[in-house]
């Protein structure tokens, strides 16, 4: 019988296994010796020349076109200077070199080396948009500084420059907190700061590609390990009509002010211009501290978008809305009239009409035509501040329109509750009288005004102003109105332009438009005789807001000229030029063009 535990046979077989495998290991040891000792020099040379880089490939940002296909924002090729800090022998020497050549300012770069994320192999962009001369100088010293690399990238450019600076917007560097947790973040990524650039950021922003390459010890690319191509951003066609926009730029000239042109039916913004403006191209690459302090310290605040952020008393442009409110509430009928003697005593104070001699008997249409203050003091008294406020709010005044969520000012419609809460003082009855002619604690933006006048033009639809068209139209807010009441106000506003005594007659009577002038007091002076003698900063703000053509309304235009003087004499002529450009550009001109 076999002994069960007899291991001899197995041991013999086991030895074979042991011998084969130990033999293989011995061979590998020879291989190790061969690689390291015999070929060692060759491999060491290869290692010396071995450099791996991860190069980001910039994705072109989506371009921005106006509705006729004109370029508003483009990408210009630009040379970027990259440094791969991992590869530098002595970064201080590199910084010294770049500073000596006048390419960078060393101080700032040193801070960025400290702040950079470690362990990514990713380069830092140390200079954008460098000149040919600098490119040549870096290339000449390439072998001394293999960690430097010049690549082509993109720089945002705005062909219309200051003409569309506020509406198209500009770019800024992403902050560190914004880039937190983003997978594809690049250290110097630019994002939209304002305007369409910010509103359309998600569409416009492309995705960086990356390429891993082997480079030689002197920075020459030897071969590519892998490449992940960039995804370009999406082009955007916006609602802006460059022809109207240019007319707005010319119409305001050197005056500070704001112009907004809306399509009365869709709410599409056809023009949006804030003056003074600035050159948005300077934000596309690194800005020097001097440039920044020059633009941010300008007393005229060119960076402020006056169309959305500037709040002004609406002055007489508020009157059509109060008239409509009076009719809707049934407090007055179109024939209700007052007698204007040039002033009236209310709550123990004398309130003046702008026309010292008075207007005589004034009904609603005439009240609008001649902009009689006495009529509206008395109408406002009937309405009371609460009803005035609630109607103005329904008409879209004193609240943001939703065009640029982060950037819009809401304005103000004062009332007793607000007065107690914010000012801590009681509401004076006289303030209600002021509000009824658009002065005192009531502030609106030019954009709000254009939108509210679009409502008068389109029969009561409060449209959604927008710059980026979407496939389904924006739903307007409906304000239920008696069409007959609306008709009275509309015909009053036609008389502002075409009536014998219309306040805008001088400038606009040849155009098929309706609208309202406004002259907003900046300060009340003891002597009210003449506005002409006032110093500039105390002069009135001039308004004209209106729409046209009357038969088939298309455009609503709001013009505000800061410290311009009278609405009829300053704002209305500006509006005339804009309307002319709009009618020329008109609906028919683009019927074959881009859709909304």
């Amino acid at each position, binding site marked *: 019988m076999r002994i069960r*535990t007899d291991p001899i046979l197995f041991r013999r077989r*086991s030895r074979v296994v042991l011998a084969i495998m130990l033999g293989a290991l011995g061979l590998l040891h020879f*291989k190790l010796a061969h690689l*390291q*000792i015999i070929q*060692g020099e060759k*491999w060491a040379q290869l290692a010396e020349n071995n450099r791996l880089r991860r190069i980001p490939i910039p994705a072109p940002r989506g371009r921005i076109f106006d509705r006729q296909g004109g370029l508003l924002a483009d990408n210009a090729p630009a040379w970027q200077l990259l440094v791969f800090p991992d590869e530098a022998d002595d970064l201080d020497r590199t910084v010294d070199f770049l500073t000596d050549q006048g390419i960078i300012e060393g101080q700032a770069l040193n801070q960025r080396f400290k702040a950079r994320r470690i362990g990514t192999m990713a380069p830092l962009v140390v200079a954008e948009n460098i000149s040919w001369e600098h490119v040549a100088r870096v290339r000449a010293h390439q072998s001394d500084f293999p960690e430097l690399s010049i690549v082509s990238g993109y720089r945002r450019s705005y062909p219309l420059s200051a003409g569309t600076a506020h509406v198209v917007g500009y770019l800024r560097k992403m902050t560190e907190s914004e880039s937190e947790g983003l997978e594809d973040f690049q250290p110097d990524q630019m994002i939209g700061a304002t305007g369409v650039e910010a509103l359309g950021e998600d569409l416009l922003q492309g995705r960086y590609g990356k390429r891993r390459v082997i480079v030689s010890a002197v920075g020459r690319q030897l071969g590519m390990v892998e490449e992940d191509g960039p995804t370009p951003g999406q082009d955007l066609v916006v609602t802006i009509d460059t022809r109207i926009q240019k007319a707005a730029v010319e119409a305001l000239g050197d005056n500070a002010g704001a112009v907004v042109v809306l399509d009365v039916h869709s709410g599409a913004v056809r023009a949006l211009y804030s003056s003074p403006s600035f050159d948005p191209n300077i934000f596309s690459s690194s800005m020097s501290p001097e440039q920044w302090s020059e633009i941010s310290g300008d007393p005229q605040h060119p960076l402020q978008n006056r169309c959305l952020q500037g709040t002004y008393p609406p002055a007489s442009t508020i009157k059509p809305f109060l008239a409509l409110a009076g009719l809707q509430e049934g407090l007055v009928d179109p024939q209700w009239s007052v007698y204007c003697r040039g002033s009236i005593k209310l709550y123990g104070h004398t309130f003046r009409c702008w026309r010292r001699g008075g207007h005589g008997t004034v009904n609603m249409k005439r009240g609008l035509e001649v902009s009689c203050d006495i009529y509206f003091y008395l109408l406002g008294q009937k309405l009371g501040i609460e009803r005035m406020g609630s109607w103005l709010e329904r008409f879209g005044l004193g609240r943001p329109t939703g065009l640029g969520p982060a950037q819009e000012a809401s304005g103000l419609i004062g009332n007793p509750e607000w007065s107690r809460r914010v000012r801590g003082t009681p509401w004076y009855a006289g303030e209600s009288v002021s509000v009824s002619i658009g002065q005192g604690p009531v502030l609106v933006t030019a954009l709000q005004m254009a939108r509210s006048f679009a409502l008068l033009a389109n029969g009561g639809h409060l449209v959604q102003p927008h710059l980026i068209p979407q496939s389904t139209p924006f739903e307007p807010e409906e304000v239920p109105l008696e069409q007959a009441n609306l008709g009275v106000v509309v015909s009053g506003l036609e008389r502002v332009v075409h009536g014998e005594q219309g306040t805008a007659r001088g400038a606009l009577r040849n155009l098929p438009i309706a609208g309202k002038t406004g002259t907003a007091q900046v300060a009340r002076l003891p002597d009210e005789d003449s506005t002409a003698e006032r110093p500039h900063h105390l002069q009135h703000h001039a308004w004209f807001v209106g729409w046209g053509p009357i038969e088939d309304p298309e455009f609503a235009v709001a013009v505000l000229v800061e410290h311009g003087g009278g609405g009829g004499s300053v704002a209305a002529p500006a509006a005339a030029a804009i309307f002319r450009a709009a009618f020329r550009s008109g609906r028919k001109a683009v019927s074959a063009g881009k859709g909304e």
Partner: protein
Amino acid sequence: MHHRIDSALMLAIGSVLAASLVNLYGVSSAVGSGLLLRQAIWGIFGMALLWACSLVRATYWERAAPKIYAICLLALVAVLFLGQVRGGTRGWFVLGPVSLQPSEFARLGTMLMVAAFLGKREEDHLDIMAFLIISALVAVPVTLVLLEPDLGVALTFGPILVVAWWLGGLKPRVWVAVALLAVITAGVAWTTFLKPYQKERVLTVLDQDRDPYGAGYQVRQSRIAVGSGGLTGEGIGQGSQSVLRFLPAQQTDFAFAAWAESTGFIGGSALLFAFGVILFRLGVLTEKSQRRSDLSFVTLVFAWLAFQIIVNLGMVMGWLPTTGVTLPLFSYGGSSVISTCATLGIVQSIWRHRFVNQ
């Protein structure tokens, strides 16, 4: 009565683990420093486990083999449903800070089971039934591991199967049949289900300069690292291939390349010597063990360890395709260290109880 633990074997295991920590310290600038502490904890725990396993009687391990094997299979099934995915492989149980890879432990279970089966048999040759049983014992866990899929771990079951056939005494004509089947399978695999990148890896072994920036990239960088180490190396943490992150997976698959770059031929030889001592002590034990099951187990462990070392070094030096087979005790990885230590603990148990009259 029983013997003292095999201290030469212990010393060699400890040396490899210590070298692995030094190597992780050296590559920490490229892969982060968190791995070092984790590997140190795993190493200490592994050595303790090794000691504990050696205290259990060898015959107990043999009796418990079916149960251990069954638990391992259950774990392999469970991980397919409950496991965490890493790098496309669903192979990890995650329990708080600890993650375990059941496939590493299944290998130990399989070796115990196969050895127990061989030890039970009295015949000198494998009949067809025994051949099928042994093949099934290995094929079931391998199939489960391939479902994860983890090709690198699945490959390490290969030597277990082949050596088990050899020890059991497979008849020459069956060897011929098996070899033919292997050739056909390889041919079918090449033309049907091998992915293009896998074929490229094989081709780059045949032609070393093929596609140096594509499929051949990793091996090329590895060879540059090893070769540039020279006789004395560039110093721990000084290897440019490692610091500049040319070396892929330098804490795991290509750990030896980082070691060879930083310590040179001297360090590389020292590490190989430590592995040699481990294998030599296993060989000594096969000469001394008196039972077929013990002898089979030690031989299987020897074959598996030697296979992993050969395949890994072969890959690092460009002789074999990249397959994801790690260097035992030296590559970073908790489950690998723990399961290897447990396996060597059972080897120590056999050493201590080798003369006990059962």
